[in-house]
């Protein structure tokens, strides 16, 4: 008994195992980090190396596996049950889930990668931060916030319960949060942002296609309208505010059931507008902008300071 107590005390006094390893990666390999609980922080450098640091537990050490297509980082315990944790489709097209894993450790990763390396990151209960990426980024978390600075090509960020923020990205961007706010700043390419009751804030956007949908939140858009672009903003109970440059050229289609409409661009609301769509043209009407909110206000502004977009 005493021996057990002494051994237990000795083990408790030992520092946790910490992983710190650096290795070379091949071009085209993707980094795949799966974390049951904790935090994933990705930084970048110009070297063709990956450095993994983690405060993992000696009972659940980090394992690093390399295949021709990816470098996989996760703890041994999580690796043993992650597959069973998957949601899979049955023949009937349904979704099912395996048993819940137990006794998995909380791990904070700090990983430095080549700046163009593609990233696949996520886990059930983990926050994810990416800084300085110039590659594809995919993040999926059940519970946790996602913050990404950078990203090129396909960028997909999804959290069931958490906020999503994306800055300085280019490419085809998809942002989804079931229960959180979605923010994107200085993004070019194409972007879709979706949440249920959260707010959507899009600032400094230079995209040819924008889709923003929320059921109960507001939508704020500050960006340019491309002459060949299509822009759709839809809420149910939230307000939609667009802040556009002075030289905007677009055909606007707006609709609301119970909200008010205001616009810095000239437009005239018909006597019977509620439940009807109103279309009006600004400039040559090159871009297509649709704004619809069932029970919210629509405000289309133009700001002189935005004319330099």
């Amino acid at each position, binding site marked *: 008994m005493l021996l057990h107590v002494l051994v237990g005390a000795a083990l408790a006094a030992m520092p946790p195992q910490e992983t710190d390893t650096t290795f070379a990666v091949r071009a085209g390999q993707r980094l*795949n980090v*799966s974390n049951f609980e904790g935090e994933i922080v990705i930084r970048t450098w110009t070297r063709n190396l990956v450095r993994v640091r983690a405060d993992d537990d000696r009972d659940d050490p980090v394992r690093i596996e390399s295949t021709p297509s990816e470098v*996989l980082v*996760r703890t041994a315990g999580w*690796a043993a049950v*992650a*597959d069973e*944790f*998957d*949601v*899979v489709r049955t023949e*009937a*097209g*349904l*979704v*099912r*889930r395996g*048993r*819940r894993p137990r006794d998995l450790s909380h791990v904070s990763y700090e990983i430095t990668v080549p700046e163009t390396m593609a990233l*696949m990151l*996520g*886990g*059930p209960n983990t926050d994810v931060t990416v800084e300085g990426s110039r590659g594809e980024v995919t993040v*999926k*978390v*059940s*519970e946790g916030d996602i913050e990404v600075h950078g990203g090129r090509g396909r960028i997909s960020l*999804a*959290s*069931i*319960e958490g906020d999503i923020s994306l800055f300085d990205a280019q490419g085809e961007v998809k942002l*989804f949060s*079931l*229960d959180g706010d979605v923010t994107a700043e200085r993004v070019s390419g194409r972007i879709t942002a*979706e949440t*249920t*009751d959260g707010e959507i804030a899009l600032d400094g956007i230079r995209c040819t296609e924008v889709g923003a*949908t929320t*059921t*109960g939140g507001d939508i704020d858009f500050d960006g340019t309208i491309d002459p060949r672009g299509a822009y759709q903003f*839809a809420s*149910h*109970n939230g307000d939609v505010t667009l802040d556009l440059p002075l030289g905007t050229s677009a055909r606007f289609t707006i*609709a609301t*059931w119970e909200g008010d409409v205001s616009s810095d661009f000239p437009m005239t609301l018909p006597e019977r507008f*509620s*439940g*009807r*769509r109103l279309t009006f043209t600004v400039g040559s009407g090159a871009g297509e902008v649709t704004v*619809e909110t*069932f*029970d919210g206000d629509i405000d289309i502004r133009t700001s002189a300071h935005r004319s330099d977009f």
Partner: protein
Amino acid sequence: MTDSWTERLSDYLDDELTLGERAALDAHLAGCATCRDDLARLGRVRSWAAGYEGSAPRTDPWPGIRRALGRREPQADTVPLAARRRRRTVRLGAPLALAASLVFATVSGVTWWVARATAPARTAPTADAMAVRAAASVTLHAAESYGVAIGELERALVDRPERLDSTTVRVLREKLASIDAAIAEALDALAQDPASGYLADHFADLMRRKLSLLRNVASTASFES
């Protein structure tokens, strides 16, 4: 001939026909592809309604649609929607919420209505009637297109809590309730303005969004290794 049987398809599914009526309808179905299609659509709608636990519209939009179409009362051989709704409530029983029966009755009603509305008109339809018809078609199409998939995913994700952790299920239930409330509000608005293309599209968009949400949750909760 088809019209008279179309109105009995819901009763057929609910096993409410007499043996003689059922045999006659079976014979008719064997030779009528339109009625077979309608029967299959009704079946799909009922499958969806059986799993629907969302908010019900406070008002039934379809009397307004009917009034706008021709301002005529239902023909003697049809069953008023209100009566249908009451009967459905009893028949569907305890496992289903009142909302399910309301939605089932509403969508069954619009299935019946669209079949009637798209039949050759005795007089040229007015622009308003055409708008109502278009809006109803959009609404029905959305209910049919998304309803079954929504029902399957909702049951798979929400009704079997072992497949998702409890926090996720709680959040998912809250958000589904939020969208269901929005769907009910859209239907309420359609009751007041059945010719609104925007409202019909908005209803369709909310249904699409609900399906998208469920798919996104299923995808996000999957952690590939």
